[in-house]
Every structure is written in structure tokens, then in C-alpha cells.
């Protein structure tokens, strides 16, 4: 388990992480989400002792990272894809790490095999593609068979086969009872992989809940109603306090359950031809949560902007 206790990091005037507190539990994949610059990478670096917190602490199984005699056997991390010396071979890079923590050399071949790098283990890291570098970083994280794993943008640069491999890897690691923390911007992947979400923005915690709850909290959850008499139903639903948006011949209703809408239609004698709940996607829920916290945002071109230009 990872415990973040009022973790804060300031660089001079700028606050990168502000009073972050959370418990990341074993047995599930916890997704770590936030806009660019929100403090995700900094938080992960603080967990493994690369950056020192300004205040607060990050503990793994109740100890700080540097207190472990064999840290690589407790925590595996893929943070800041700086894998190793570009002149060193993949094998020797992992061998050095293994020797530092008393891990046998045979283990190096095992993890290279698992990561799909067995055929290039003798090649220089400098000649690796982005995807291969990522796989090497994942192999390094698995080297000590740790109970806690941190992955910062693991699918960066991977092809669809690699993305699927990472997803299945995370799920199987969590199923074995390990603690898995993954940060990613790929919402569709996160939706498939994560059980629990920690969402931060501008260094602050925005949400810390199971993924179902986060998505259910989105205002984009709606019910699609198809009826031959939309105006009547619309009036009735608006009167009940729901908001109704026409959409391609049907009505998109928010603020009411399918049961309430069905009953309302029955009450005013309107036939219903389709009544289906529309779940928000994780991306939509995430965008709503973090709209205020986007650090490096861009404005999408809108009709108004075009007219101005």
C-alpha cells in the first residue's frame, strides 16, 4: 500500500503538489489522472525518493523508500522514461540494477523475456525506439518482483499489441494482490484498466473514488428517449425539473432516471419507442472534473473565434 500524507512540493514560488493525501490500496489498479503539469510525475518521483517533499510524506508499506534494504524488491517503478546509459546494453543495464539489490542474474533474462526484449538484450539502449525503451523500463520495474508498482505513462510509444500487453499486465499484477498505480492520458485505456481513480489538478486532489463513482458523477450521464410525441414529453419532463436536449429525432434527458422518465411518459400518455441510459465516458467525466485545473490548455477553434479572426 502507498500512503500519501499531506504531500507537498514547492519550487520557489510555484506549488507543484499541494497537501495531497490518499491511500493507494493493493489488489486493484489505481489510475492517477490529471492535466499536464498537475503534479503526477512529481508525486511519483517523491514516492520513490527521487524528489524530496517540501512538506508531508510518501510511505510504502509504512516506510519511506530509502529505508528499504532492497528497495527494488519492494517497489518497481517506471517514472521518467530515462532508462539507462545509451551506451550500455539492455542486459547490462538490468544486470547492474539486479546486482545492486542482490537479485540473481537469471532474473534479468526472465524479465527481458516477459517484456518481449529477449532478442535485443545485447543491443545498446541508445538504439532503442521509444516503445522498446518503455518495455525496458517496465522490465526494470518487474525485476525485483515487487509488491508495489508505479507506472508513469507506460503505454507511451507502444503499438496496439503493446498497449494490450500493458493492460493485461496491470490487471494480472493487481489480481495477484499487488498495489498498482498508473498514470496515463489515454482515457480509453484507463477506462479499461483502472478500478479506482485518483484525479489531481494543479497539485490538489480533485477526486479519489472507484471508477464507477467518478463516471456516475458526470453530468453527461443521460437517458435517450425516442417518442412520436417529443414536444409533449419534453414539456412534462421540463416541468419535473429535468433538462432536455433534442438529439437527432430523440430527446436526451439529464436529471432523471429511466424509471422516472418512463413513468412521466406513461402519465401523459406518450408512447415510448426507446428508453436507454447513456453513460458518460471517462474522458467526459474527467474533462468536467479538471476543467478548472488545466495548466497548459489550448482553445479549440469555435465559430466565434473564426469570426474574430
Amino acid at each position, binding site marked *: 500500500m502507498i500512503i500519501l500524507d499531506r504531500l507537498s512540493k514547492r519550487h520557489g514560488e510555484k506549488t507543484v503538489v499541494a497537501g495531497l493525501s490518499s491511500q493507494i490500496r493493493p489488489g486493484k489498479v489505481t489510475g492517477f489522472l490529471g492535466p499536464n503539469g498537475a503534479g503526477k510525475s512529481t508525486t511519483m518521483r517523491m514516492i520513490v525518493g527521487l524528489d524530496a517533499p517540501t512538506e508531508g510524506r510518501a510511505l510504502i508499506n509504512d516506510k519511506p*523508500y530509502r529505508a528499504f534494504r*532492497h528497495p527494488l524488491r519492494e517497489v518497481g517503478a517506471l517514472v521518467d522514461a530515462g532508462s539507462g546509459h545509451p551506451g550500455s546494453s539492455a542486459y547490462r543495464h538490468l544486470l*547492474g540494477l539486479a*546486482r545492486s539489490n*542482490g537479485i540473481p542474474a537469471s532474473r534479468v533474462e526472465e524479465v527481458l523475456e516477459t517484456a518481449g526484449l529477449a532478442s535485443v538484450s545485447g543491443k545498446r539502449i541508445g538504439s532503442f525506439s521509444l516503445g522498446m525503451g518503455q518495455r525496458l523500463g517496465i522490465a526494470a520495474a518487474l525485476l525485483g518482483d515487487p509488491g508495489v508498482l508505479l507506472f508513469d505513462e507506460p503505454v507511451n510509444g507502444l503499438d496496439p499489441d503493446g498497449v494490450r500487453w500493458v493492460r493485461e499486465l496491470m490487471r494480472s499484477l493487481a489480481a495477484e494482490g499487488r498495489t498498482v498505480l498508473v498514470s496515463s492520458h489515454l482515457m480509453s485505456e484507463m477506462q479499461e484498466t483502472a478500478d479506482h481513480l485518483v484525479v489531481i489538478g494543479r497539485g490538489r486532489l480533485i477526486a479519489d473514488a472507484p471508477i464507477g463513482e467518478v463516471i456516475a458523477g458526470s453530468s453527461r450521464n443521460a437517458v435517450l428517449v425516442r417518442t412520436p410525441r417529443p414536444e409533449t414529453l419534453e414539456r412534462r419532463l421540463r416541468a419535473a425539473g429535468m433538462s432536455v436536449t433534442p438529439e437527432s429525432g430523440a430527446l436526451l434527458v439529464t436529471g432523471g432516471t429511466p424509471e422516472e422518465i418512463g413513468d412521466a411518459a406513461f402519465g401523459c400518455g406518450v408512447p415510448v419507442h426507446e428508453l436507454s441510459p447513456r453513460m458518460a465516458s471517462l474522458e467526459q467525466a474527467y474533462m468536467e472534473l479538471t476543467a478548472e485545473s488545466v495548466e497548459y490548455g489550448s482553445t479549440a477553434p469555435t465559430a466565434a473565434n473564426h469570426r474574430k479572426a
Partner: protein
Amino acid sequence: MNEMTTALRLTTPAKGGGLRGAIAFEWTKLWSVRSTWWSLAAGVLLCAVFAAVIGMSVEASEKNGFDVARPAPHLAAQGIMLVQLAVLVMATLATTAEYANGSIRATLRGVPVRGRMLLAKTAVVAAVAAAAGTVFCVLGTLVTAVFAGEHGAYTAGELAAAAFGTGVYLALIAVLVIGTGTVFRSAAGTITTIIMVLLVLPELVKVTGVGWLETAGEYTPSVAGAVLMTRAGEPYGGGTALPVLLLWAAAAVAGGWAALRARDA
């Protein structure tokens, strides 16, 4: 899916780690990079070349009536003043390359106790530097002796003392380089500083004519090193030279350790 998970198990009990693990780590890293090999090879080659040139120069000077005969190890030491750059480059890259390519993060994840990491790196590089120094001294002596003939006559005792002194000197300046490299984190800044301190400064202060500056210049590491390599007895004996070098090395390590502990990786 099951094959994947069972393959991920590491069943051997936890062992190793600590300082021994850190030293094994640094040793593996040092020899995994080509720059270590070629800088040491370049050193050996340059050592032989300089030693030959020095030997020939002594032979020629003696023929012209100048008395420049000295034991061959002490003649070769002049060449080692330049050959030491090979060891300095190796020590610099062993420290600064990790910052340049980001692998310092992997290193500190494997060995999070920073003082231990620095100690291990220093021990490994200093040991290699000491071995290199001994090799340079013996090789240089043999080559110089070939060209200088009887003008470079020496005893086994002189060679042994010179080889030991050269090994100690190169080990301690390797320590100096690692401390400096940890503070600057860049190869360019480190090498420039080291060259200034070792080669430029002592020569510079000699021409100023300012008394205390000239005296201070005698306590630079390269002057102390020359004493250790040649047992010249001036400007001071080995009993002073060694503490001077140790102080320089200790100051650099202290600075490096402070910087390492205070900064984010």
C-alpha cells in the same frame, strides 16, 4: 494469462544489497560503457608515446652535454602529468554521464541512500584509477628506459615507490573529480575546472611574482602528486604531499555529498 503471472515470481530469498550491492552496481555500470575502455586504452597508448619521447629527449640532451639523467620512473612521471587526463575523463564521465542521460534516476532507485551510492562510485573509480596509475608508471618506466639507456638507470625500489605513489595520486584525483562532477553534474564544467586546478593554476601563479600566491600554488594537487610520484623532496616531502591530496579529495567529496543530498535527482 497464467503463464504470464507465474513467470513473474522471484523465489530466491532477499540477500545482498547495501554497500556491497552498490559497489557491484557501480562496477557493472563502469565497464558497461565504451568510454571507460577507450579512455583507459588511450591512456596506455599516450603513456607509451610520451615515455618514448621523454626517453629520446634525455638521450639527445645527454649527448649534447646536458645533465638530465634521472631514474626512469621519475622521467616517465613527467609524461604521466598529461596521461592523467585519460583517468580524469573516465572519472568525469562515470559521474556526469548519469545526469546527462537521466540514468541517475535508475541508479538512485536501486541505491536510494545517496551517501552509499557516492561512496560506492568513489571506491570503484578510485580503485580503477589506482590500478591505471600503477600500470602507467611501470609501462612508462620500461619504455623510457629503452630510449634513455644508462641515463635512466633505476632500481627496483625506486620503481616500486614510484608505482605506489602514482597509484595513490591518480586514485585521489579520481576522488576529486567525482566530488566535483557530483556538484557540477556536467562533463564540460567538471573537466574545465579540473584542468584549471591541476594544470593551469600551478603554472599561472608561478609567473605572478606574488609571494603568497606562489606558495599557495605549491599546494595544488598536481604539485603534491608530482612529489608522490618522484619523491623529489621539494617543495616538500611525501609526508606533506599525501595529506595535501587527501584534503583536496575530502573537500570535493564533502561538497559532492552535500549537493547530492540537497538536490532532487
